[in-house]
């Protein structure tokens, strides 16, 4: 039970990291998704370059770069700051790609009908395109969230005291058979955390499907 309480000490940090990075991603991905589907080729290329650059490098490398590679004047990232920014930016890139796919799968006639009715670009985007795209991509977003929850463990490598970090610390102090125990516990905790997300997303999805079923 000593092991459990040790691992649980990292739980708030894991949740905080995941939710902060996810919020940054959910909001930040909106303009980037618009950029990815922009008719201006320069905007589109710049957005594409950003997405491919961010996704092309492993998260652990981004975290090391942010934590140890950035110094502006006297400013340096602390471990938690580096982890939130790193995971947040990676989330922006992945979610923007998910959004773009969703927006593109909304039939062209929807935009045409909105234009023909005289709705403005903003109303068309937020009132017509986004709600339909969201229905399409909400399962992918939930999948990404559960992935992000597990990826937040990478922050342990830059000394963020989340669950995996706490497990390692406990294991190091108890180098016996007991040493394996925190890892089993942490695994179970990750599953326990992702189950509600998966459950909620399935319920949300089937409810929305029912509402608009063809």
């Amino acid at each position, binding site marked *: 039970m000593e092991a459990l309480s040790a691992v649980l000490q990292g739980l708030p940090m894991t949740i905080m990291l995941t939710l902060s990075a996810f919020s940054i991603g959910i909001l930040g991905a909106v303009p980037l998704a618009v950029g990815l589907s922009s008719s201006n080729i320069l905007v589109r290329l710049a957005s594409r370059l950003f997405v491919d650059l961010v996704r092309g490098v492993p998260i652990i490398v981004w975290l090391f770069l942010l934590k140890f590679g950035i110094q502006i004047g006297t400013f340096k990232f602390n471990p938690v700051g580096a982890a939130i920014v790193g995971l947040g930016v990676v989330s922006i890139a992945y979610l923007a790609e998910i959004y773009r796919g969703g927006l593109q799968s909304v039939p062209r006639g929807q935009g045409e009908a909105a234009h023909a*009715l*005289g709705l403005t670009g903003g109303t068309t985007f937020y009132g017509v395109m986004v709600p339909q795209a969201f229905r399409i991509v909400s399962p992918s977003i939930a999948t990404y969230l559960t992935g992000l929850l597990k990826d937040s463990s990478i922050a342990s490598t830059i000394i963020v005291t989340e669950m995996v970090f706490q497990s390692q610390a406990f294991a190091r102090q108890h180098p016996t058979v007991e040493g394996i125990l925190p890892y089993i516990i942490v695994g179970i905790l990750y599953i326990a955390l992702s189950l509600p997300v998966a459950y909620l997303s399935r319920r949300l999805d089937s409810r929305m499907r029912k509402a608009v079923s063809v």
Partner: protein
Amino acid sequence: MTLSEIADGKLAPRLGIKLDNISKRYGEHTVLDDVSLHVEPGTVTALIGPSGAGKSTFLRCINLLERPDSGTIQVDQHTIEPGKDVNSRDLAALRRTVGMVFQSFNLFPHMSALKNISFPQQKVLGRSKEEADERSRQLLERVGLKDKADQHPGKCSGGQQQRIAIARALALDPAIMLFDEPTSALDPEVGLEVLAVMRELAADGMTMIVVTHEMQFARDVSDTLVVMADCKIIEQGDPRAIMSDPKEARTRRFLRAVLER
């Protein structure tokens, strides 16, 4: 109350529309070659012709869903030259004046039938939700779908969806209605309900431009029949006269194909 009284809300004046020298090409491929059409207020114009003739593209040029490369569009004191920059005020005025009904309905699937009709009224005309909903219910009743107000479009048949789409367009008090093959995606029997609504609109004096393959409708309801082929208008005039005695060989060939099958 007639459909168009509800539709124009006593505000929208009867308007015609003048299109002159509309040309459109995609790269090397010409779709519309110097097409002109003048539509008098309160008349019904039927556009017929073989597929690929440019009928739908022409119709979509009228409200600038397609941007013509050159030509002028005159409606209600606005003159728009789509080849040049169109300012957003003219574009908004044009789209407010002209309503459109699509072959594939294009209702918003995430909104109920009522919201489909009310949402644009609130956003475009600034009506309150109560005003908009009241108007929407009137229109739904007129197209015979009062009981579908709270259904989502996915739960409605094609013919019902198209009638909701007509109500959605009428709710914005357009002076002119464009119909792009409104019955082509429907079973023949279901198409009849839509045609009935359109006949009623025409009888009420709505200015209408209809791209259609329904020859009976074109003959009985339209005031002007326009035959398009090969990116041009090849013949136009009284529908009965053209159908019984076409001047152009191309028209004759097309009419034989659609009437004598």
